[in-house]
């Protein structure tokens, strides 16, 4: 199967107080704070998963995006290729604030473990039982052509049957998630122009 044949199976946006799937708004909430918004999102989708409340903001954002796209799928060989600009800086700043006092005596393992951007993929893997490829890239902005190259290679070499790709960024209270599933069958052609257009859709 050549890369030209792969499709965008489904996609999801979480931004500006709204959660949408395939362009259709599924949930919106007027909470100003991310923490209230993402909790309301969790409740709306009737997500019964207590570990959610221990996660950092980046993981909560990525987790809910994956929830919208993967909750009804039986496929288990789904690779994860996520990217963002701010890495885990939101949590890094919390760890830094804790260690700035008294020789690091206040460092917390529950915070420190989230000072890596790939932890959110670990959370998704645990939730959906995915023993699959994970890669987390940092870019100045969404780079669909590079994510598609990488996804194509995993699909062509049969390392994955589907790939959950996208952008998941949380920084200084601002959040932006655009996730999509690449598969052999789907809604739209896998194309950089198409992905750029979808990403920018409000």
């Amino acid at each position: 199967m050549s890369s030209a044949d792969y499709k965008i199976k489904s996609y999801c946006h979480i931004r500006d107080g709204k959660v949408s799937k395939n362009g259709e708004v599924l949930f919106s909430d007027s909470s100003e704070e991310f923490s209230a918004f993402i909790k309301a999102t969790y409740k709306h989708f009737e997500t019964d998963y207590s570990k959610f409340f221990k996660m950092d903001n980046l993981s909560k954002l990525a987790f809910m995006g994956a929830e919208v796209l993967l909750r009804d799928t039986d496929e288990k060989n789904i690779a994860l290729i996520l990217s963002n600009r701010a890495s885990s800086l939101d949590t890094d700043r919390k760890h830094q604030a804790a260690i700035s006092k008294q020789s690091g005596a206040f460092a917390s393992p529950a915070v420190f473990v989230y000072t890596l951007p790939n932890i959110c993929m670990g959370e998704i893997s645990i939730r959906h039982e995915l023993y699959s490829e994970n890669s987390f890239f940092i870019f100045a902005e969404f780079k669909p052509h590079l994510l598609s190259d990488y996804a194509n290679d995993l699909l062509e070499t049969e390392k994955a049957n589907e790939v959950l790709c996208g952008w998941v960024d949380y920084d200084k209270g601002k959040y932006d998630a655009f996730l999509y599933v690449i598969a052999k069958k789907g809604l739209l052609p896998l194309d950089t122009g198409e992905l750029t257009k979808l990403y920018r859709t409000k």
Partner: protein
Amino acid sequence: MNSVYLSHNNIISAYGFDSAAAVSSIKNEVSGLSLVDDSKILPNPFYSSLIPQGSLSEAFEKLNPKEAYTRLEQILLVSLADTIKKSGIELSDRVGLIVSTTKGNIDVLEDDSPFNEERAYLNELGKKIENFFGFKNEAIVLSNACVSGVLALAVAKRFIHQKRYDHVFVVAGDLVSKFILTGFNSFQALSETPCRPYCKTRAGINIGEVGCSVLVTADNTNLVDESVRIIGEASCNDANHISGPSRTGEGLYRSIVSAMNQAEIEADAIDYISAHGTATNYNDEMEAIAFNRANLQHTPLNSLKGYFGHTLGASGLLETIIGMYSLHSNTLFASLGFQELGVSKPLHIIKKTTAKESSIFLKTASGFGGCNTAAIFQKVNS
């Protein structure tokens, strides 16, 4: 599919400023770890291997920098400058750059840092390196916990296969910082003595720092004596826990099997394993289970953490480069610090540096987030 090779390389470490300096010390079983007393990092002294700042500044000035660079940037630039120069490759639009790091310039978050907080963004680090050398393509920063360094090689290979690039320079590094040391200390994971991977008396990790770089290329006319071909690579998540390794070694086992399938080899074709071996109780135990499940319990194995400590986002690349020299010199390097097996399954730990004809080695790494990577390399010049 076309072959992809690892070629020109460099290691900046406590041992010196090229790969040969590190390899010759390792061959002589000399550790790069020493007791560091720096209360700005931790209140109590700790074992680490550090790059000497004086030599670093001296080497960096030779590159004629036009602006101020952070310590990590200096390390990465000095390493990559050597690798690029030796390769003789012109940085055209067919040449990619991958930067592997877990925390990058995280030390700029400290109050007394002369650098702006913006410098902590990893794409800023990528941009500094890209612009310094004039790469035509934007740096790809990979931040995937402790598997980053070896995963970066798989990523480079995959972009070459997709014809995005003909050559990719991979550079990797992380600093020994208060941020990292206090974090691992909060997990009670730091050893008060030089680490002893897989040993009964192991008591945790040491954190060390290196910068290293390698040319990944499809061009078999620009290889070096120690070059290897990447014949298989895979990453699998444990899907179990974000900070604790799987009790069944699930993700590591699956990664090894998948990499062996891609390489079309059986376990007995592997001459040597360069394992992760951080010397924490849980990690080493998990690895022993995974290697036994993959039928690799009789294959000679070492962890290089007793030489460098755990160098985080650089470790996978660092240990792959050392593995290249191990194959080339047909020498198995001792797993420093090991005395008596302290895991529940048998492993063949290399106790003394010994001569052995070798052509294929397996590199593995595991990290927070449940990530695991395995990559298999074959000697080119036998």
